[in-house]
């Protein structure tokens, strides 16, 4: 289920009484309905599914997650680049 992708809100406007926005998905811009995130603002990111913004993306939380991954460095030397590691195992 649920191919949902992060997008950045560009311009917001009312259309037929509905809150809509132009949302940028890494160079691709599409119309998205903001009714479920009424306080989403321009410049913010949200998860978008079938044309609807469903949840605001939280940058601080994302950074914390990535920092955590970076700290899992214990066995880094053993693996190095994951692709090369896989390659080695295959030989």
């Amino acid at each position, binding site marked *: 289920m649920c191919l949902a992708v*992060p997008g950045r809100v560009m311009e917001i406007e009312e259309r037929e009484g509905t809150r809509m926005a132009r949302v940028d998905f890494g160079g691709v811009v599409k119309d998205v*309905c903001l009714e479920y995130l009424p306080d989403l603002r321009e410049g913010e990111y949200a998860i978008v599914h079938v044309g*609807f913004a469903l949840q605001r*993306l939280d940058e601080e939380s994302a950074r914390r997650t990535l920092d955590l991954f970076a700290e*899992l460095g214990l066995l880094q030397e053993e693996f190095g*680049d994951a692709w090369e590691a*896989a390659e080695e195992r295959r030989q």
Partner: protein
Amino acid sequence: MKYLEEFQNPELAGRLLADIRATVTRPWALMEVCGGQTHSIIRHGIDQLLPEEVELIHGPGCPVCVTPLEMIDRALAIAARPEVIFCSFGDMLRVPGSERDLFRVRGEGGDVRVVYSPLDALRIAQENPQREVVFFGIGFETTAPPNAMTVYQAKKLGIRNFSLLVSHVRVPPAIEAIMRSPDCRVQGFLAAGHVCSVMGIDEYPELAARHRVPIVVTGFEPLDILEGIRRTVRQLERGEHVVDNAYPRAVRPEGNPAAKAMLADVFEVTDRAWRGIGVIPASGWRLSPRYRDQDAEHRFPVSDITPCEPAQCRSGEVLQGQLKPSECEAFGTVCTPRTPLGATMVSSEGACAAYYLYRRLSGPASVSGPASGSVSGPASGSVSGSVSGSQEVSTVA
């Protein structure tokens, strides 16, 4: 922060894998509930990178796979009507009903259109006032709010020629059903991140506690999935069984209150059949009485369509992790990706289709049995390591 490439970083993936390797001490069977996660796992070959001890079972979280046969047949019957414009997400067009699929209905003259969003279907209804526009409302808690909003808007704007064929399903009752099954092998769940973006995580603690099973809310990028696995394995190794959120950037405990309110207005909970599995109590939504006249099943005489699934197809057992696809008699003979009998053979990430592909890759030596080489166990849908297996087979160039 783009929230995308950052979570596909191969180096960080290596660290997560290393941590999983360092943590795991014995075999664990994890189910990723969501079809989107299955897609991501196969697309990135994650299953092949995991230590042998970690087995992934593809769960029933693909709306394409679980939409029951009678609902497909009703969709086909409605789509074939001359006055109807039948709109659907692209996923559903190749899903076989009893005798045909939506592609074939279109070939036979039905007006079937693929839309990106249910709002597109609503626009089509506005543009074609003399036609009946029906949208096929499939999906889990993530897709239900967009569809609910569309029904609400249709009512608000007085668009009378729009209706919804509802086949929405809910995740928690499915987890309950899987855990209750006597053959259940699942020891931990990767819960569907985007479902929780909408619904929050309130429904899961009670399930985790009662079934003594860790439930980790998990995202969809490779790092998200590895992190979900890492946290689940960690709980399992420690003997814990709590709800954990490994996707906090997109999941708040309370979910999306506006969406939940709309769901409560437009839909009501109902029992629903899951393809291959049967009826799961309270596992679905239907339109609430206020919106009943926008229900395509009420608008068109299709309620008496109740076909039997092809007896041959055992996708229900496959979906619950109880049967390997290759143990199904139809597998690879009458049932292939080109001629699917069950929905699990339709999309390339369906358990049966994935198994079929990797069996081809593993070469003629293993045609009659399960995948050769380092397949990590007897679980269905688990296809790791078969590339290296293929190197042991002599081939005709």
